[in-house]
Protein backbone atom coordinates (compact mmCIF):
# COMPACT_ATOMS: atom_id res chain seq x y z
CA UNK A 1 0.00 0.00 0.00
CA UNK A 2 1.17 3.51 -0.75
CA UNK A 3 0.44 6.21 1.81
CA UNK A 4 -1.47 8.39 2.08
CA UNK A 5 -4.35 6.38 0.64
CA UNK A 6 -6.41 8.48 -1.72
CA UNK A 7 -10.10 8.46 -0.76
CA UNK A 8 -11.06 11.86 -2.13
CA UNK A 9 -12.20 10.84 -5.59
CA UNK A 10 -15.08 13.34 -5.52
CA UNK A 11 -12.51 16.12 -5.55
CA UNK A 12 -10.65 14.68 -8.48
CA UNK A 13 -9.55 11.31 -9.79
CA UNK A 14 -6.12 10.15 -10.86
CA UNK A 15 -5.83 9.78 -14.61
CA UNK A 16 -6.20 6.28 -15.96
CA UNK A 17 -2.89 5.27 -17.61
CA UNK A 18 -4.84 4.33 -20.76
CA UNK A 19 -6.10 7.90 -20.96
CA UNK A 20 -2.61 9.28 -20.66
CA UNK A 21 -1.39 6.99 -23.44
CA UNK A 22 -4.15 8.20 -25.72
CA UNK A 23 -3.30 11.83 -25.03
CA UNK A 24 0.47 11.85 -25.34
CA UNK A 25 0.80 11.99 -29.14
CA UNK A 26 -1.40 15.10 -29.23
CA UNK A 27 1.08 17.21 -27.31
CA UNK A 28 3.93 17.08 -29.82
CA UNK A 29 3.53 14.69 -32.78
CA UNK A 30 -0.06 15.58 -33.60
CA UNK A 31 -0.11 19.06 -32.19
CA UNK A 32 -2.29 20.73 -34.81
CA UNK A 33 -5.08 23.21 -34.20
CA UNK A 34 -8.42 21.50 -34.81
CA UNK A 35 -9.63 24.70 -36.48
CA UNK A 36 -6.86 24.71 -39.09
CA UNK A 37 -8.71 23.69 -42.22
CA UNK A 38 -5.91 23.82 -44.76
CA UNK A 39 -3.29 21.25 -43.80
CA UNK A 40 -2.93 17.76 -42.38
CA UNK A 41 -1.91 18.97 -38.93
CA UNK A 42 -5.29 20.59 -38.52
CA UNK A 43 -7.16 17.70 -40.15
CA UNK A 44 -5.54 15.19 -37.82
CA UNK A 45 -6.45 17.25 -34.79
CA UNK A 46 -10.00 17.73 -36.01
CA UNK A 47 -10.36 14.03 -36.66
CA UNK A 48 -9.18 13.27 -33.14
CA UNK A 49 -11.64 15.76 -31.69
CA UNK A 50 -14.48 14.35 -33.77
CA UNK A 51 -13.68 10.87 -32.55
CA UNK A 52 -13.57 12.02 -28.94
CA UNK A 53 -16.87 13.83 -29.42
CA UNK A 54 -18.43 10.54 -30.44
CA UNK A 55 -16.93 8.73 -27.46
CA UNK A 56 -18.30 11.37 -25.12
CA UNK A 57 -21.69 11.44 -26.83
CA UNK A 58 -22.04 7.65 -26.71
CA UNK A 59 -21.53 7.59 -22.95
CA UNK A 60 -24.47 9.92 -22.33
CA UNK A 61 -26.66 8.88 -25.24
CA UNK A 62 -26.48 11.97 -27.44
CA UNK A 63 -25.11 12.80 -30.88
CA UNK A 64 -21.62 14.21 -31.19
CA UNK A 65 -23.03 17.51 -32.46
CA UNK A 66 -24.66 18.12 -29.11
CA UNK A 67 -21.37 18.22 -27.20
CA UNK A 68 -19.82 21.64 -26.52
CA UNK A 69 -16.33 21.25 -25.13
CA UNK A 70 -15.40 23.58 -22.29
CA UNK A 71 -12.60 23.95 -19.77
CA UNK A 72 -14.56 21.95 -17.20
CA UNK A 73 -17.86 21.65 -15.41
CA UNK A 74 -17.66 25.07 -13.80
CA UNK A 75 -17.51 26.69 -17.20
CA UNK A 76 -20.24 24.37 -18.49
CA UNK A 77 -22.52 25.37 -15.59
CA UNK A 78 -21.83 29.03 -16.23
CA UNK A 79 -22.50 28.65 -19.92
CA UNK A 80 -25.74 26.76 -19.32
CA UNK A 81 -27.17 29.07 -16.68
CA UNK A 82 -26.04 32.47 -17.91
CA UNK A 83 -26.29 31.35 -21.52
CA UNK A 84 -29.93 30.30 -21.11
CA UNK A 85 -30.72 33.50 -19.24
CA UNK A 86 -29.33 35.60 -22.06
CA UNK A 87 -30.81 33.49 -24.84
CA UNK A 88 -34.30 33.10 -23.40
CA UNK A 89 -34.51 36.22 -21.25
CA UNK A 90 -37.31 37.58 -23.39
CA UNK A 91 -39.50 34.63 -22.40
CA UNK A 92 -38.99 35.04 -18.68
CA UNK A 93 -36.42 35.84 -16.05
CA UNK A 94 -36.98 33.15 -13.43
CA UNK A 95 -34.87 30.10 -12.65
CA UNK A 96 -35.15 27.35 -10.04
CA UNK A 97 -32.27 25.57 -8.37
CA UNK A 98 -31.45 23.88 -5.06
CA UNK A 99 -29.45 25.13 -2.09
CA UNK A 100 -27.21 22.05 -2.15
CA UNK A 101 -25.88 22.68 -5.65
CA UNK A 102 -22.20 23.16 -6.33
CA UNK A 103 -20.89 26.72 -6.01
CA UNK A 104 -20.44 26.88 -9.77
CA UNK A 105 -24.21 26.66 -10.12
CA UNK A 106 -25.10 28.81 -7.13
CA UNK A 107 -22.70 31.58 -8.08
CA UNK A 108 -23.84 31.54 -11.71
CA UNK A 109 -27.39 31.90 -10.38
CA UNK A 110 -26.28 34.80 -8.21
CA UNK A 111 -24.90 36.42 -11.34
CA UNK A 112 -28.22 35.93 -13.07
CA UNK A 113 -29.88 37.71 -10.14
CA UNK A 114 -27.43 40.57 -10.55
CA UNK A 115 -28.33 40.75 -14.22
CA UNK A 116 -31.97 41.22 -13.25
CA UNK A 117 -33.16 37.64 -13.05
CA UNK A 118 -34.95 35.93 -10.21
CA UNK A 119 -33.87 32.62 -8.74
CA UNK A 120 -35.68 30.30 -6.36
CA UNK A 121 -33.41 28.15 -4.20
CA UNK A 122 -35.25 25.03 -3.08
CA UNK A 123 -34.33 23.45 0.25
CA UNK A 124 -33.97 19.69 0.14
CA UNK A 125 -35.37 17.25 2.65
CA UNK A 126 -33.16 15.99 5.46
CA UNK A 127 -31.95 13.21 3.20
CA UNK A 128 -30.84 15.61 0.46
CA UNK A 129 -33.59 14.80 -2.02
CA UNK A 130 -35.84 17.60 -3.18
CA UNK A 131 -39.59 17.55 -2.85
CA UNK A 132 -41.17 17.46 -6.28
CA UNK A 133 -44.16 19.35 -4.95
CA UNK A 134 -41.83 22.16 -3.82
CA UNK A 135 -40.42 22.26 -7.32
CA UNK A 136 -43.85 22.43 -8.91
CA UNK A 137 -44.94 25.12 -6.49
CA UNK A 138 -41.93 27.25 -7.36
CA UNK A 139 -42.73 27.33 -11.08
CA UNK A 140 -44.12 30.59 -12.42
CA UNK A 141 -45.03 31.71 -15.93
CA UNK A 142 -41.64 33.45 -15.99
CA UNK A 143 -39.62 30.30 -15.28
CA UNK A 144 -37.20 29.49 -18.08
CA UNK A 145 -34.79 27.05 -16.43
CA UNK A 146 -34.72 24.39 -13.74
CA UNK A 147 -31.21 23.36 -12.75
CA UNK A 148 -30.78 20.46 -10.33
CA UNK A 149 -27.61 18.44 -9.94
CA UNK A 150 -27.58 14.74 -10.75
CA UNK A 151 -25.43 13.42 -7.89
CA UNK A 152 -24.26 15.59 -5.03
CA UNK A 153 -20.54 16.05 -4.57
CA UNK A 154 -20.58 16.03 -0.79
CA UNK A 155 -23.14 13.41 0.13
CA UNK A 156 -23.57 11.56 -3.18
CA UNK A 157 -27.36 11.82 -3.17
CA UNK A 158 -28.86 11.18 -6.60
CA UNK A 159 -31.97 13.19 -7.40
CA UNK A 160 -34.96 11.77 -9.27
CA UNK A 161 -33.82 13.36 -12.51
CA UNK A 162 -36.52 11.82 -14.70
CA UNK A 163 -39.30 13.06 -12.45
CA UNK A 164 -37.76 16.55 -12.38
CA UNK A 165 -37.33 16.68 -16.14
CA UNK A 166 -40.94 15.52 -16.59
CA UNK A 167 -42.10 18.47 -14.53
CA UNK A 168 -39.90 20.82 -16.56
CA UNK A 169 -41.19 19.39 -19.84
CA UNK A 170 -44.82 19.56 -18.75
CA UNK A 171 -44.36 23.26 -18.01
CA UNK A 172 -42.33 24.06 -21.11
CA UNK A 173 -39.21 24.86 -19.07
CA UNK A 174 -35.65 23.91 -19.97
CA UNK A 175 -33.90 21.47 -17.65
CA UNK A 176 -30.18 21.60 -16.89
CA UNK A 177 -28.31 19.21 -14.65
CA UNK A 178 -24.80 19.38 -13.25
CA UNK A 179 -23.86 15.72 -13.67
CA UNK A 180 -20.21 16.15 -12.79
CA UNK A 181 -20.20 13.44 -10.13
CA UNK A 182 -22.57 11.09 -11.91
CA UNK A 183 -21.36 10.75 -15.50
CA UNK A 184 -19.03 7.80 -15.82
CA UNK A 185 -20.07 6.48 -12.41
CA UNK A 186 -23.72 5.57 -12.96
CA UNK A 187 -25.73 5.28 -16.19
CA UNK A 188 -26.71 8.73 -17.42
CA UNK A 189 -28.75 8.96 -20.61
CA UNK A 190 -29.87 12.40 -21.69
CA UNK A 191 -32.77 11.02 -23.74
CA UNK A 192 -34.14 8.62 -21.14
CA UNK A 193 -33.58 11.20 -18.41
CA UNK A 194 -35.17 14.03 -20.41
CA UNK A 195 -32.21 16.37 -19.98
CA UNK A 196 -31.89 19.53 -22.11
CA UNK A 197 -28.50 20.71 -20.91
CA UNK A 198 -25.90 18.82 -18.90
CA UNK A 199 -22.51 19.74 -17.47
CA UNK A 200 -19.77 17.23 -16.80
CA UNK A 201 -16.02 17.02 -16.68
CA UNK A 202 -13.14 14.68 -17.47
CA UNK A 203 -11.14 14.85 -14.26
CA UNK A 204 -13.86 13.27 -12.14
CA UNK A 205 -13.82 10.19 -14.36
CA UNK A 206 -10.11 9.40 -14.64
CA UNK A 207 -9.49 11.90 -17.42
CA UNK A 208 -7.39 15.06 -17.41
CA UNK A 209 -8.16 18.34 -15.67
CA UNK A 210 -9.02 21.36 -17.75
CA UNK A 211 -11.59 19.80 -20.06
CA UNK A 212 -15.31 19.28 -19.69
CA UNK A 213 -18.45 19.56 -21.72
CA UNK A 214 -21.91 20.98 -21.89
CA UNK A 215 -24.48 18.81 -23.59
CA UNK A 216 -26.90 21.03 -25.48
CA UNK A 217 -29.96 19.29 -26.90
CA UNK A 218 -30.53 19.83 -30.64
CA UNK A 219 -33.96 18.23 -31.08
CA UNK A 220 -37.24 18.30 -29.13
CA UNK A 221 -36.58 21.03 -28.21
CA UNK A 222 -33.66 22.60 -30.03
CA UNK A 223 -31.77 24.45 -27.32
CA UNK A 224 -29.30 27.26 -27.71
CA UNK A 225 -27.22 29.20 -25.25
CA UNK A 226 -25.60 32.59 -25.65
CA UNK A 227 -21.84 32.19 -25.66
CA UNK A 228 -20.02 33.44 -22.60
CA UNK A 229 -16.66 33.34 -24.35
CA UNK A 230 -16.50 35.23 -27.62
CA UNK A 231 -13.97 34.77 -30.34
CA UNK A 232 -13.50 32.45 -33.29
CA UNK A 233 -16.95 30.90 -33.14
CA UNK A 234 -15.80 27.43 -32.17
CA UNK A 235 -18.23 24.82 -30.85
CA UNK A 236 -21.14 25.96 -33.01
CA UNK A 237 -20.57 29.51 -31.85
CA UNK A 238 -21.42 28.67 -28.25
CA UNK A 239 -17.86 28.51 -26.92
CA UNK A 240 -14.96 30.15 -28.68
CA UNK A 241 -11.36 29.28 -28.02
CA UNK A 242 -8.86 26.89 -29.56
CA UNK A 243 -9.83 23.38 -28.62
CA UNK A 244 -7.76 21.60 -25.99
CA UNK A 245 -7.03 18.70 -28.32
CA UNK A 246 -4.98 16.46 -25.99
CA UNK A 247 -7.47 17.10 -23.19
CA UNK A 248 -10.43 16.33 -25.42
CA UNK A 249 -8.78 13.13 -26.68
CA UNK A 250 -8.24 12.12 -23.05
CA UNK A 251 -11.82 13.00 -22.15
CA UNK A 252 -13.04 10.82 -25.03
CA UNK A 253 -10.90 7.91 -23.92
CA UNK A 254 -12.04 8.32 -20.32
CA UNK A 255 -15.67 8.19 -21.50
CA UNK A 256 -15.03 5.08 -23.57
CA UNK A 257 -13.40 3.29 -20.63
CA UNK A 258 -16.20 4.38 -18.29
CA UNK A 259 -18.81 3.09 -20.69
CA UNK A 260 -17.14 -0.31 -20.91
CA UNK A 261 -16.32 -0.70 -17.24
CA UNK A 262 -18.88 1.34 -15.33
CA UNK A 263 -21.26 -1.48 -14.47
CA UNK A 264 -18.63 -3.68 -12.88
CA UNK A 265 -16.85 -0.78 -11.27
CA UNK A 266 -20.00 0.62 -9.66
CA UNK A 267 -20.77 -2.79 -8.24
CA UNK A 268 -17.27 -3.25 -6.86
CA UNK A 269 -17.12 0.25 -5.34
CA UNK A 270 -20.61 -0.09 -3.89
CA UNK A 271 -19.61 -3.25 -2.03
CA UNK A 272 -16.46 -1.59 -0.71
CA UNK A 273 -18.28 1.59 0.26
CA UNK A 274 -20.98 -0.37 2.08
CA UNK A 275 -18.34 -2.31 3.99
CA UNK A 276 -16.52 0.88 4.98
CA UNK A 277 -19.76 2.48 6.06
CA UNK A 278 -21.07 -0.52 7.96
CA UNK A 279 -17.82 -0.87 9.87
CA UNK A 280 -17.61 2.82 10.76
CA UNK A 281 -21.25 2.89 11.83
CA UNK A 282 -20.51 0.27 14.44
CA UNK A 283 -19.03 3.17 16.37
CA UNK A 284 -21.32 5.00 18.75
CA UNK A 285 -22.84 8.26 17.56
CA UNK A 286 -21.78 7.89 13.94
CA UNK A 287 -24.30 8.92 11.31
CA UNK A 288 -24.54 8.78 7.53
CA UNK A 289 -25.43 12.09 5.91
CA UNK A 290 -27.85 11.96 3.01
CA UNK A 291 -30.16 9.37 1.53
CA UNK A 292 -28.56 5.94 1.36
CA UNK A 293 -30.89 4.40 -1.21
CA UNK A 294 -30.54 7.06 -3.90
CA UNK A 295 -26.83 7.57 -3.80
CA UNK A 296 -23.69 7.32 -5.90
CA UNK A 297 -22.04 3.97 -5.24
CA UNK A 298 -18.62 5.31 -4.32
CA UNK A 299 -19.49 8.03 -1.81
CA UNK A 300 -19.97 7.95 1.96
CA UNK A 301 -20.38 11.02 4.14
CA UNK A 302 -20.30 10.22 7.83
CA UNK A 303 -20.48 12.41 10.92
CA UNK A 304 -18.70 11.26 14.06
CA UNK A 305 -20.40 13.21 16.78
CA UNK A 306 -18.28 14.98 19.39
CA UNK A 307 -15.12 15.10 17.29
CA UNK A 308 -14.24 17.96 14.99
CA UNK A 309 -13.55 17.19 11.34
CA UNK A 310 -10.29 19.00 10.88
CA UNK A 311 -8.87 17.56 14.07
CA UNK A 312 -10.03 14.18 12.83
CA UNK A 313 -8.34 14.60 9.48
CA UNK A 314 -5.12 15.48 11.24
CA UNK A 315 -5.38 12.15 13.02
CA UNK A 316 -6.11 10.30 9.81
CA UNK A 317 -3.21 11.63 7.81
CA UNK A 318 -2.56 8.25 6.22
CA UNK A 319 -5.77 8.65 4.24
CA UNK A 320 -6.76 11.61 2.08
CA UNK A 321 -10.40 12.52 2.67
CA UNK A 322 -12.30 15.77 3.07
CA UNK A 323 -14.49 17.24 5.76
CA UNK A 324 -17.49 19.51 6.05
CA UNK A 325 -15.80 21.19 8.97
CA UNK A 326 -15.53 24.95 8.88
CA UNK A 327 -11.88 24.80 9.72
CA UNK A 328 -11.11 23.21 6.38
CA UNK A 329 -12.59 26.04 4.39
CA UNK A 330 -11.44 29.58 3.94
CA UNK A 331 -14.86 30.85 4.97
CA UNK A 332 -14.80 29.31 8.47
CA UNK A 333 -18.37 28.19 7.86
CA UNK A 334 -19.26 24.52 8.00
CA UNK A 335 -20.48 22.85 4.82
CA UNK A 336 -23.52 24.64 3.42
CA UNK A 337 -24.65 21.37 1.88
CA UNK A 338 -24.82 19.62 5.24
CA UNK A 339 -26.44 22.68 6.80
CA UNK A 340 -29.05 22.65 4.04
CA UNK A 341 -30.03 19.15 5.15
CA UNK A 342 -30.88 20.69 8.49
CA UNK A 343 -27.87 19.18 10.22
CA UNK A 344 -26.74 20.87 13.41
CA UNK A 345 -23.57 22.84 12.85
CA UNK A 346 -22.03 20.52 15.35
CA UNK A 347 -22.67 17.47 13.18
CA UNK A 348 -21.56 19.31 10.06
CA UNK A 349 -18.28 20.07 11.80
CA UNK A 350 -17.87 16.39 12.56
CA UNK A 351 -18.21 14.99 9.06
CA UNK A 352 -15.81 13.13 6.82
CA UNK A 353 -16.41 12.48 3.14
CA UNK A 354 -15.02 9.31 1.62
CA UNK A 355 -14.83 9.13 -2.17
CA UNK A 356 -13.76 5.74 -3.47
CA UNK A 357 -12.42 5.28 -6.96
CA UNK A 358 -11.25 2.95 -9.71
CA UNK A 359 -7.92 2.34 -8.02
CA UNK A 360 -9.20 1.85 -4.47
CA UNK A 361 -8.45 -1.62 -3.12
CA UNK A 362 -10.02 -3.79 -0.42
CA UNK A 363 -6.77 -3.64 1.48
CA UNK A 364 -6.92 0.15 1.51
CA UNK A 365 -10.49 0.09 2.81
CA UNK A 366 -9.46 -2.28 5.60
CA UNK A 367 -6.72 0.11 6.57
CA UNK A 368 -9.01 3.15 6.40
CA UNK A 369 -11.57 1.53 8.70
CA UNK A 370 -9.02 0.87 11.42
CA UNK A 371 -7.30 4.19 10.94
CA UNK A 372 -10.50 6.24 11.24
CA UNK A 373 -11.75 4.27 14.24
CA UNK A 374 -8.48 4.79 16.07
CA UNK A 375 -8.49 8.52 15.38
CA UNK A 376 -12.14 8.96 16.39
CA UNK A 377 -11.55 7.11 19.66
CA UNK A 378 -8.42 9.09 20.39
CA UNK A 379 -10.17 12.40 19.78
CA UNK A 380 -13.20 11.41 21.78
CA UNK A 381 -10.94 10.61 24.69
CA UNK A 382 -9.87 14.23 24.63
CA UNK A 383 -13.28 15.71 23.77
CA UNK A 384 -15.12 17.49 26.59
CA UNK A 385 -18.34 17.01 24.62
CA UNK A 386 -17.89 13.26 24.52
CA UNK A 387 -17.32 13.23 28.27
CA UNK A 388 -20.48 15.26 28.83
CA UNK A 389 -22.43 12.98 26.51
CA UNK A 390 -21.19 9.97 28.43
CA UNK A 391 -22.27 11.61 31.68
CA UNK A 392 -25.71 12.08 30.21
CA UNK A 393 -25.51 15.86 30.02
CA UNK A 394 -27.67 17.41 27.33
CA UNK A 395 -25.31 19.64 25.37
CA UNK A 396 -28.22 21.79 24.32
CA UNK A 397 -28.88 22.67 27.96
CA UNK A 398 -25.48 24.33 28.33
CA UNK A 399 -25.04 28.03 27.83
CA UNK A 400 -21.98 28.16 25.62
CA UNK A 401 -19.53 31.03 25.79
CA UNK A 402 -19.56 31.68 22.09
CA UNK A 403 -16.93 33.58 20.26
Amino acid sequence: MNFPIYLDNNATTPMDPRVLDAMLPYFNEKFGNAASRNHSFGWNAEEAVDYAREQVGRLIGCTSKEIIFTSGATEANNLAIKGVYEMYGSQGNHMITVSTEHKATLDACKKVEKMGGEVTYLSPNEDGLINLSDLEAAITDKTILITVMYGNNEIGVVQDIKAISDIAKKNGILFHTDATQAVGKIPVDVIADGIDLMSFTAHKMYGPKGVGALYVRRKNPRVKVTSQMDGGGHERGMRSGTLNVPGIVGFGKACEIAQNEMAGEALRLGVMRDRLEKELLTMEEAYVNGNTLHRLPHVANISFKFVEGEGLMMGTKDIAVSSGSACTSASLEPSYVLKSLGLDDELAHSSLRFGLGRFTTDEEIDFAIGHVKTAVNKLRDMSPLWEMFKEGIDLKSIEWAEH
Partner: protein
Amino acid sequence: MAYSEKVIDHYQNPRNIGTLNKESKMVGTGLVGAPECGDVMRLQIEVDDVTGIIKDAKFKTFGCGSAIASSSLATEWLKGKTIESAMEIDNMDIVEELALPPVKIHCSVLAEDAIKMAINDYRVKQGLAPIEDNKKHY
Protein backbone atom coordinates in the same frame (compact mmCIF):
# COMPACT_ATOMS: atom_id res chain seq x y z
CA MET B 1 -2.78 23.70 5.61
CA ALA B 2 0.61 22.71 6.93
CA TYR B 3 0.90 22.54 10.71
CA SER B 4 3.99 23.52 12.61
CA GLU B 5 6.03 20.75 14.22
CA LYS B 6 5.00 21.93 17.66
CA VAL B 7 1.29 21.75 16.81
CA ILE B 8 1.77 18.25 15.46
CA ASP B 9 3.72 17.23 18.55
CA HIS B 10 1.01 18.49 20.91
CA TYR B 11 -1.68 16.89 18.77
CA GLN B 12 0.06 13.53 18.70
CA ASN B 13 1.25 13.63 22.31
CA PRO B 14 -1.20 15.87 24.11
CA ARG B 15 -0.07 16.83 27.61
CA ASN B 16 -2.38 16.63 30.57
CA ILE B 17 -5.58 15.32 29.03
CA GLY B 18 -8.09 14.63 31.69
CA THR B 19 -10.60 15.78 34.21
CA LEU B 20 -10.19 17.21 37.70
CA ASN B 21 -12.93 17.16 40.30
CA LYS B 22 -14.86 20.27 39.41
CA GLU B 23 -16.67 20.19 42.76
CA SER B 24 -13.41 20.69 44.67
CA LYS B 25 -12.87 24.14 46.12
CA MET B 26 -9.27 24.02 44.96
CA VAL B 27 -10.21 23.35 41.33
CA GLY B 28 -11.16 26.00 38.82
CA THR B 29 -12.85 25.06 35.55
CA GLY B 30 -13.07 27.08 32.36
CA LEU B 31 -15.32 25.94 29.52
CA VAL B 32 -15.23 28.10 26.41
CA GLY B 33 -16.31 27.92 22.78
CA ALA B 34 -19.42 26.26 21.38
CA PRO B 35 -20.07 23.00 19.55
CA GLU B 36 -21.65 24.80 16.60
CA CYS B 37 -18.50 26.89 16.18
CA GLY B 38 -16.40 23.75 15.99
CA ASP B 39 -14.32 24.52 19.09
CA VAL B 40 -14.96 23.71 22.74
CA MET B 41 -12.16 23.84 25.29
CA ARG B 42 -12.34 22.79 28.89
CA LEU B 43 -9.37 23.76 31.00
CA GLN B 44 -9.00 22.99 34.70
CA ILE B 45 -6.48 24.04 37.31
CA GLU B 46 -5.89 22.70 40.78
CA VAL B 47 -4.31 25.11 43.24
CA ASP B 48 -2.18 24.09 46.21
CA ASP B 49 -3.89 25.38 49.34
CA VAL B 50 -0.60 26.10 51.09
CA THR B 51 1.58 27.65 48.41
CA GLY B 52 -1.15 29.05 46.16
CA ILE B 53 0.63 27.58 43.19
CA ILE B 54 -1.14 25.74 40.38
CA LYS B 55 -0.09 22.17 41.03
CA ASP B 56 -2.09 20.47 38.32
CA ALA B 57 -3.80 21.41 35.09
CA LYS B 58 -5.90 19.30 32.74
CA PHE B 59 -7.73 19.87 29.50
CA LYS B 60 -10.15 18.36 27.08
CA THR B 61 -10.77 19.97 23.71
CA PHE B 62 -13.16 19.43 20.83
CA GLY B 63 -11.62 21.17 17.86
CA CYS B 64 -8.96 21.26 15.22
CA GLY B 65 -5.31 20.41 15.76
CA SER B 66 -4.43 24.00 16.62
CA ALA B 67 -7.13 24.17 19.28
CA ILE B 68 -5.92 20.92 20.83
CA ALA B 69 -2.31 22.11 20.74
CA SER B 70 -3.19 25.52 22.24
CA SER B 71 -4.93 23.97 25.21
CA SER B 72 -2.29 21.29 25.68
CA LEU B 73 0.39 23.97 25.73
CA ALA B 74 -1.66 26.08 28.16
CA THR B 75 -1.80 23.26 30.69
CA GLU B 76 1.98 22.84 30.44
CA TRP B 77 2.51 26.52 31.08
CA LEU B 78 0.01 26.69 33.95
CA LYS B 79 1.62 24.05 36.08
CA GLY B 80 3.89 25.56 38.70
CA LYS B 81 2.63 29.10 38.16
CA THR B 82 0.97 31.35 40.73
CA ILE B 83 -2.52 32.59 39.91
CA GLU B 84 -1.08 36.05 39.30
CA SER B 85 1.45 34.92 36.73
CA ALA B 86 -1.11 32.57 35.14
CA MET B 87 -3.32 35.62 34.55
CA GLU B 88 -0.53 37.08 32.47
CA ILE B 89 -0.46 34.32 29.87
CA ASP B 90 -1.23 36.09 26.63
CA ASN B 91 -2.77 34.46 23.60
CA MET B 92 -0.02 35.89 21.41
CA ASP B 93 2.55 33.92 23.42
CA ILE B 94 0.69 30.79 22.39
CA VAL B 95 0.52 31.96 18.77
CA GLU B 96 4.25 32.51 18.80
CA GLU B 97 5.18 29.29 20.53
CA LEU B 98 3.03 27.15 18.21
CA ALA B 99 3.60 29.28 15.08
CA LEU B 100 -0.15 29.46 14.50
CA PRO B 101 -1.23 31.00 11.19
CA PRO B 102 -3.63 34.00 11.27
CA VAL B 103 -6.76 31.85 10.70
CA LYS B 104 -5.91 29.90 13.86
CA ILE B 105 -5.37 32.82 16.20
CA HIS B 106 -8.87 32.29 17.59
CA CYS B 107 -7.64 28.96 19.01
CA SER B 108 -5.11 30.81 21.15
CA VAL B 109 -7.75 33.33 22.21
CA LEU B 110 -9.96 30.47 23.35
CA ALA B 111 -7.10 29.05 25.38
CA GLU B 112 -6.44 32.37 27.06
CA ASP B 113 -10.14 32.79 27.80
CA ALA B 114 -10.29 29.27 29.23
CA ILE B 115 -7.35 30.04 31.54
CA LYS B 116 -9.02 33.21 32.82
CA MET B 117 -12.36 31.52 33.24
CA ALA B 118 -10.74 28.67 35.21
CA ILE B 119 -8.92 31.16 37.44
CA ASN B 120 -12.07 33.13 38.10
CA ASP B 121 -14.02 29.97 38.82
CA TYR B 122 -11.38 29.13 41.41
CA ARG B 123 -11.42 32.67 42.85
CA VAL B 124 -15.18 32.70 43.21
CA LYS B 125 -15.02 29.35 45.02
CA GLN B 126 -12.51 30.93 47.36
CA GLY B 127 -14.84 33.82 48.04
CA LEU B 128 -12.81 36.25 45.96
CA ALA B 129 -14.11 38.60 43.31
CA PRO B 130 -13.49 37.53 39.71
CA ILE B 131 -10.81 39.48 37.91
CA GLU B 132 -12.22 41.72 35.20
CA ASP B 133 -10.64 41.17 31.82
CA ASN B 134 -10.65 44.29 29.73
CA LYS B 135 -8.25 43.00 27.15
CA LYS B 136 -9.24 43.44 23.57
CA HIS B 137 -8.28 40.68 21.19
CA TYR B 138 -7.25 41.58 17.71
